[in-house]
């Protein structure tokens, strides 16, 4: 059984169609890169898996989106509970206006956990997972805004890990970071693969090549090609894929 799957998924923003008949299946414990030029629908697709698109007025979604074989758009699905299963990391670091500790504890608190000791342990584990512990252990009570951009982004990943999701969705997680911070986050993605299923939207072709097992190329709301990363980059089947990865457009 696939971890994530979509069957004939269509997304409409009002009259315009953002995604057309996307069929894609993702195995667990892999890193999948979604690539394509701006406006190709890759972020929209990513956001199908935690129903973040629901927030947009006038959106219409058809087809099936499955997590662990369950249709997450079926009637009666608890969206808050679904989102707890999927951690999300955004384009720009977006810590809350709270302390470093409270940022990571946030997901636990909103899900009704009050056991202070448990929260403390989970916060520490999560920050250690993103290799930030040594940098912040002495200033957990300080505002998260005092961290650098790269540290903030790793904190945001820790925040997503704290609720122990099985899936991590990343929407261009390094586009606002410097090269060193980017390298740290990429390394982290590599390590997290053992425990989580990761889907990464990226603009950066080299990054997709470095971190992902499979790559899906989106163009104008369609899934053009989906294959192992190696195949896509060395032997693309589709002319448009080849043009894109060789930098002829995009």
């Amino acid at each position: 059984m696939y971890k994530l799957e979509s069957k004939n998924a269509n997304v409409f923003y009002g009259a315009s169609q953002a995604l057309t008949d996307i069929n894609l299946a993702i195995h667990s414990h892999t890193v999948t890169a979604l690539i394509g030029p701006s406006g190709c629908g890759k972020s929209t697709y990513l956001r199908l898996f935690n129903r973040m698109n629901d927030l947009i007025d006038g959106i219409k979604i058809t087809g099936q989106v499955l997590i662990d074989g369950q249709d997450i758009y079926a009637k009666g699905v608890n969206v808050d509970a679904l989102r707890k299963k999927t951690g999300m990391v955004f384009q720009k670091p977006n810590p809350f206006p709270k302390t470093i500790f409270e940022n990571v504890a946030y997901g636990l608190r909103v899900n009704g956990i009050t056991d202070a000791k448990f929260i403390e342990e989970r916060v520490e584990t999560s920050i250690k997972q993103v290799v930030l512990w040594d940098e912040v252990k002495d200033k957990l009570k300080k505002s998260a805004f005092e961290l650098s951009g790269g540290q903030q982004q790793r904190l945001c990943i820790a925040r997503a890990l704290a609720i122990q999701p099985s899936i991590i969705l990343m929407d261009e997680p390094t586009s606002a970071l410097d090269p060193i911070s980017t390298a740290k986050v990429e390394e982290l993605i590599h390590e997290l693969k053992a425990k989580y299923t990761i889907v990464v939207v990226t603009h950066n072709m080299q990054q997709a090549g470095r971190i992902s097992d499979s790559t899906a190329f989106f163009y104008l709301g369609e899934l053009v090609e989906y294959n192992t990363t190696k195949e896509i980059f060395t032997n693309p089947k589709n002319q448009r894929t080849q043009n894109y990865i060789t930098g002829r457009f995009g």
Partner: protein
Amino acid sequence: MRTFIKKFSEKFIEGLLMLSSSVTSLTVVLIVFFLFKEGLGVFDKTAVEEGFVIAINKNNSVTELSSEEIKNIYDQKIISWSEVRGKKDSIFLFRLEDISNFYTDEQIGENFELLPLRLSSIVDSFPNIIAFFPEKYLDKNFKGKELHADKVSLSEFFMGEEWFPTAHPSAQLGVKPLILGTLWVSLGAILLALPLGLAAAIYMSEIAKENVRRFMKPLIELLAGIPSVVYGFFGLVIIVPLIQKTFGVAVGETGLAGSIILGIMALPTIITISEDAMRNTPRAMKEASLALGASKWQTIYRVVIPYSISGISAGAILGIGRAIGETMAVLMVTGNAAVIPHSILEPMRTIPATIAAELGEAPYGGLHYKALFALGCILFIITLFINLTVEFVSNRKKFNKH
């Protein structure tokens, strides 16, 4: 040549801009200077009306009386000299019109030319007398003792519990009832307006659909454009009778009526400023919260409100500022009794309402006039303090959020 003209016109425009801004600043400074010059003048005046004297018998051991004591003597609340550090003897009040009880018109003289002499001997013959009469009738060889009234003191001004600037022979200038009235009415207003305004702001920024918001926002902003006298009229006709009926009080013109009207007037400020602040919460931050499984409400009170708290406080403080300085509506509905309030259901009088109501009848340059300017100074200091607080609160935002 062309470049010269261009340069010249640019310099000219620059100069014009500089001129208008300096004129504006200068005007503000001048107004403040004028306000304080007139206001502080009150401490240079005596509470006893100018051109009048208060005299006692020369054997009376009392050497000075505060303006409050003078008033209480003339109100016959103090009836014995022992109450004002004197001998145990009842006080004999003498006013100028009482002169006919002692002397006939002939004895005073056709043009009152003998009046100073007569007054002198009256004061001399009663050991327990206190007399109040115009200074021009003071005899050159006056045989009594003139009581020199002190200048209005700071403590009398701020701690005095009675505001009666036209009292004879000694004006009462206690601003405490007015300051308390102002604070009570404003506090009541903010207690009403803050929860309501915050709720409306949250609804408009986070919950309402775009088209609802587009309809509601201008409507609320319209509230700010209604003239305050219209609010006052509305309060007088609708709210005052309602309070009278609901609480069974004798008069509906109470502090509460003022609070309600001011609360309504402060609402647009609170709503628009805090709504703007909440809408400034980055979308990504809200999404991050939702993506962690937080519900919409959890996101609002755990992320949106903390993020926009400085904007919300600024809105609230500016709302208070509006309430404190408001004049017309308050004047119309609060009943304007200058007494220290004990309940919100009593008539109260605020500082701006006092100035507006009394300045017209205060003689230019007199004690009353100066006292009203001093009230203006107090109001100015309060609002200045409020504005500084807003400045501080919104600066704090910059430290917290890069």
